């Protein structure tokens, strides 16, 4: 395989010959209408430097600085993302992340103490084992709580042109959707999965706001079903490689059915590009023993921004500020579980 297009260096996307589109040009006025693209200006090297400084301060403060470090990374990533000539901004703080972490830690410790007390109180081993097994149903509920909570927190701390994003979906509703969808997917041996994915995307998108304006999704699981069945057959036959093509198709579909302020999204990701990106990332990480992680992070975000655009220009005149409060606890739980949902969109 020749060096992938994504390894072209900071400018990155110039090598994607299929649809030549300059990253710096935000609006391409063509005969058939215009398109407003996202772009990412950050360099992996700067991100690496941020991580090095975070490491020093984390070591010196015995780990406490970790939360402030996370904020620094997020602030940098947001500040390097641009849409229609203006950058995004991040407003989270280290203190609130620390508080969220302490609350989560408190919950975990309570659980552990509860189990230990049960054990010490002379309960029968079967009772203790049953209580330990409870972790699985608990996780099934905690994961959606973390997804919704993390999204609520992150969007509430993100802004563009001074207007905050927000997520207003009810956590309980998302838990119901997630638990039933996950169980149905298991029971049907995965056949239900496209409907489950579609329902999640709809819930997460339809409850996402920029100021007073809501994002809207009008796709259906049935549209994805055929491709998904094909993927179920071809993915094992191709040793998993076909999944990139399915994932690309899914992303294109999801975004094509997502709109905002009277303009529709357009995603140009292809299976080949997605495959090359991941292959390149994997090689980079292996060769550098993981040191290239900041560059991989930058490559991923640059890739996503480079493949996503809005058709036309959203009508912004009527949009007003409508910031929503959001607790950092959901974010902390997601961090605890090792879940990460970067960016402004689900499935990024």
């Amino acid at each position, binding site marked *: 395989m020749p060096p992938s297009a994504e390894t072209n260096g900071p400018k990155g996307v110039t090598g994607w010959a299929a649809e030549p589109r300059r990253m710096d040009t935000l609006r391409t006025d063509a005969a058939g209408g215009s398109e407003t693209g996202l772009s990412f200006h950050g360099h992996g090297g700067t991100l690496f430097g941020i991580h090095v*400084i975070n490491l020093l301060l984390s070591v010196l403060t015995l780990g406490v600085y970790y939360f402030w*470090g996370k904020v620094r990374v997020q602030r940098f990533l947001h500040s390097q993302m641009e849409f229609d000539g203006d950058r995004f901004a991040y407003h989270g703080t280290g203190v609130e992340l620390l508080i969220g972490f302490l609350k989560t830690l408190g919950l975990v410790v309570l659980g552990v103490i509860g189990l230990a007390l049960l054990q010490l109180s002379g309960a029968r081993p079967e009772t203790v084992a049953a209580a330990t097994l409870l972790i699985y149903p608990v996780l099934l509920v905690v994961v959606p709580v973390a997804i919704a909570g993390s999204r609520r927190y992150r969007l509430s701390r993100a802004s563009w042109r001074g207007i905050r994003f927000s997520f207003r979906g009810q956590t309980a509703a998302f838990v119901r959707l997630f638990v039933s969808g996950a169980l149905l997917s298991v029971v049907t041996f995965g056949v239900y999965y496209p409907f489950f994915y579609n329902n999640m995307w709809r819930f997460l998108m339809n409850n996402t706001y920029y100021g007073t304006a809501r994002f809207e999704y009008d796709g259906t699981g049935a549209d994805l079903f055929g491709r998904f069945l094909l993927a179920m057959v071809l993915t094992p036959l191709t040793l998993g490689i076909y999944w990139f093509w399915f994932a690309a198709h899914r992303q294109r579909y999801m975004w094509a059915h997502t709109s905002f302020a009277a303009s529709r999204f357009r995603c140009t990701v292809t299976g080949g590009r997605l495959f090359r990106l991941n292959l390149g990332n994997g090689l980079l990480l292996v060769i550098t023993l993981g040191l290239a992680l900041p560059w991989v992070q930058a490559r991923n975000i640059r890739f996503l921004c480079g493949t996503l655009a809005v058709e036309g220009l959203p009508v*912004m005149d009527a949009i007003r*500020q409508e910031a929503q409060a959001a607790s950092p606890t959901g974010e902390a739980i997601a961090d605890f579980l090792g879940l990460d949902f970067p960016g402004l969109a689900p499935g990024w």
Partner: protein
Amino acid sequence: MWARRSTTWSGSYFDGRTANRIPVTITVMATGLRLATVEGTFLWWPYEQLHLAQGALPGEQIRIERGLEPSETLVVSDEAFLSAIREAAPTAGRHLIPMFRRRHWAGVVLLAGAGAVIAGLAIYLWAIPALAEVAAAQMPRAWEERLGQAALESLAPTTLRCADPQRDAALSEIVARLAAAGPGSAYTFRITVVDHPAVNAFAAPGGHLVVYLGMLRATQTPAEMAGVLAHEMQHILHRHGTKALFREVSMRALLSLAVGDAGGLGQALEAAGTLGQLRYRRQDEEAADRDGMSLIQAARIDPNGMIGFLRRLSQEGPGAPHGLAYLSTHPLTAERIRQLERMAARASHAPVALLPEYPWREIGRSCAAAP
């Protein structure tokens, strides 16, 4: 009232209520910023109401915010803007100036990297061991025993344990004689034999001694066995295992925090169960040797047993079929053996025979042979 050094800059103003970008021309003055729109309206931003939200890093735009959330925002792309504030308002605008200039970024990162390595080494070599020392000393003995019990379950699973009343009695007698010679300790020593051909022995916190069948077969006299046991008993008395555990857990917790993996914290605590993979430090091994030899001498056991066994093991070296296990955890150096010889040479009492009646050649008989 124009400041002498004033210059104008172009930027974008956001009012925090609408999504409109308003281009402004900014004049940097001694007490604040003056924002002028195309229509000719003005905004006065006194420095004391402003804070720098972003702009310290290479490639970042300068973002200055004013007021409480949702705040008004001013964005300037030219990084020289901050230098202009520094010159025009060295005191009034000081809080808007980042700690270091962007062109020093690479140097700052390099310094931070070196600092992180030095701080990490200091913590690893000094702070954590000192902390583990204190923590292990504070740990109640009952907790230590429970910890040892858990370690025993994983190191010597019940199915592999080998009960042989005759042999157990002989080994217990050696342990009892060594324990009686010691300074009197709160630990009750228990010995477990594991059905495994490796030449290996170890100690779990709280008084648990584990000996592999291979080790029993490798010893030729009770005095040799006593040497191995005295060494392991000193690990228990010095709480080396508990300290190693504290070191390991705190190191992992710190590492997971440093690399930003909060979930790793849980794994660090889980590591508490994997006591078998813990390593004693070299100074712990030396202490166990030295005090083990003192114990041998106090119990009036022939010190040449311990020395002879170690020497034979080191001569066979890695070539010995099952000796690797013990040698990998107890690296034998010529210096270690010489130190033991020096101690043995100072012995004052004549040794009293250990288990003279016991047919030692049968000590390593297989488990199935137990009556």
